[in-house]
């Protein structure tokens, strides 16, 4: 966990308010079909609002959104974001969407008031998810948001819920032996 990269540096991809998970972040059919295969999900990340998004995305890029991002408790879109090495910074997320993002091991910050006012798509951002330090190098702006809580950083650093449970079980077995 100590080696985990909490600070991402990359380009901003800005979205507005009320972007739903099914039908915007990822097509409905992947949600309904419970597809959790990152390789199949990645080509369709934001496909319905920005076809080809994945081709330009690079590890370290940061999606910045307005209020109420990703309604619903489903994980599919966050699985694709995590697999691409992206980060997510939102003005707000429904709690279950936030929970799903953490459960996928995604570097995520929520309740970042007015963050969409400080960025445009293409800006060079630097975000430390463990401290909440947010820098827009293109505009010379720096803001402080609440970090990802420490107890949740453990889940994210281990790759999400599945990784956390695997680690917990292996540690327990080692202790027992």
């Amino acid at each position: 966990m100590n080696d985990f990269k909490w600070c991402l540096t990359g380009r901003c991809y800005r979205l507005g308010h009320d972007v739903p998970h099914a039908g915007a972040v990822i097509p409905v059919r992947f949600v309904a079909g419970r597809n959790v295969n990152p390789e199949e999900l990645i080509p369709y990340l934001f496909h319905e609002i920005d076809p080809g998004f994945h081709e330009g995305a690079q590890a370290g890029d940061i999606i910045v959104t307005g209020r109420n991002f990703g309604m619903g408790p489903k994980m599919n879109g966050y699985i694709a974001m995590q697999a691409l090495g992206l980060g997510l910074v939102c003005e707000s997320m429904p709690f279950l969407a936030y929970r799903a993002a953490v459960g996928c091991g995604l570097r995520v910050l929520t309740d970042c008031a007015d963050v969409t006012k400080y960025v445009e798509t293409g800006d060079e951002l630097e975000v430390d998810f463990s401290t909440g330090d947010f820098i827009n190098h293109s505009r010379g702006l720096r803001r402080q948001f609440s970090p990802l809580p420490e107890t949740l950083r453990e889940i994210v650093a281990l790759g999400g819920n599945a990784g956390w449970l695997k680690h917990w079980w292996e540690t327990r077995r080692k202790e027992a032996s």
Partner: protein
Amino acid sequence: MGMTAVEKILAEASGAASLKAGEIVYPEPQIVVVHDFLIPPSKRELDALGITRLFDPDRVIIVTDHAVLYSSRQEAAFGKIIRQAVADWGIKQFYDVGQGGHGHIFLAERGIVRPGMFLFDNDRHCTNHGAYGAFALRTGAEITRVLATGTLWTMVPKTIRMAITGTLQPGVFARDIGLRMATDLRYGGACGVDIDYRVLELTGSALEQFSLDARVALCSSPTEARAVGVFIPPSEEMLTEIRAAARGPFMPVYSDPDAAFEAELEMDISGIGPQVALTGASDKGVDISHIEGTPIHHAFIGSCGSGKYEDLVIAAAVLKGNRVAPGVRFFITPGTEDTTKRLHEEGLSEIFHAAGAILLPAGCGPCFMGNMAPVYEGEVSVSTASTNPLGRMGEKGCELFLASPATVAASAVSGRVTDPRSIDALVKKTEEEPL
């Protein structure tokens, strides 16, 4: 600063002297409820990791409610996996097909869930237990972590308190009020609050008009508006009823007078008439006049939102001496096996049969993705299902209206969406003895 009831319940479960909203804790549940459909994926995930022992099999309850009839070979295969999991994990509290009914209903009816309890449940409509003064938290697929470790990270939710005032009008029922609440509380709704992951605590002497069964119906629809819990402080009258069934001691929990509520709201129920939620969500409620007269093909009473005995008494009051309209199929799903037994004992099943309604086994019924008694393309359904997104009960090209048991029964009889206040027998019954 005092604590809200849910903060107190979580503090007790977490071994903390006090807690406040926003803190992350690891509460220990008194029980963990897993519904049938989540057992196969959970078993697969835990088996793949080599986790074969649960944290405490005696605290885990497995219920069979989503797929009761095994309408497909796949569901029959699921049943086999569920029984294998029960055997492998050493679960003693397994309610198989025909043994309990809906987990959101029978566990409290049988006194297993009691006031002040904290429990984890994979399904979000565990909010029903708030009608009994308990707090149940939905885990979704993270139930595997609970099964393995006994807990899960939990953010203490904020509580919004709503005072209920006024008098329930004849022909209007708890489910109507719940649909109105969901509509007013939803994101961008009339209440002007954010109900996402908040507990809705109901209060006020007007709640005395709502029986225990009616209180369960109140809890359903706000959940669809994203409330994490609905909490109704148990009154003395409710406690008397709860004690009679309780299978163990309990201590009811109440919010402190100086607890920090995020918002204080008021709802006057006097002016609320029958509601219908339009296709898409429980929080798309409108007065019934908006769609009154729309021809229907499918009607259904049941689900965790309206599967209590009293809900079926309301239906029987409408159906007695009437027939389901030609071209309409009408399904009734009691919430529990105990309710099914009572329907037979007290002659209600005879009324349903004489009217041409079909009695289905206790459980979720068609509300679970229409895996029994589905709706077909182009058809219109009116039901008491817990939710109604497009395609929920079958094909996507259907209208799925949600309403109270009275509205559903009245509509099944007339063949059109019908205001139950037009049924004299029902109005008379509710005037004599409020349900």
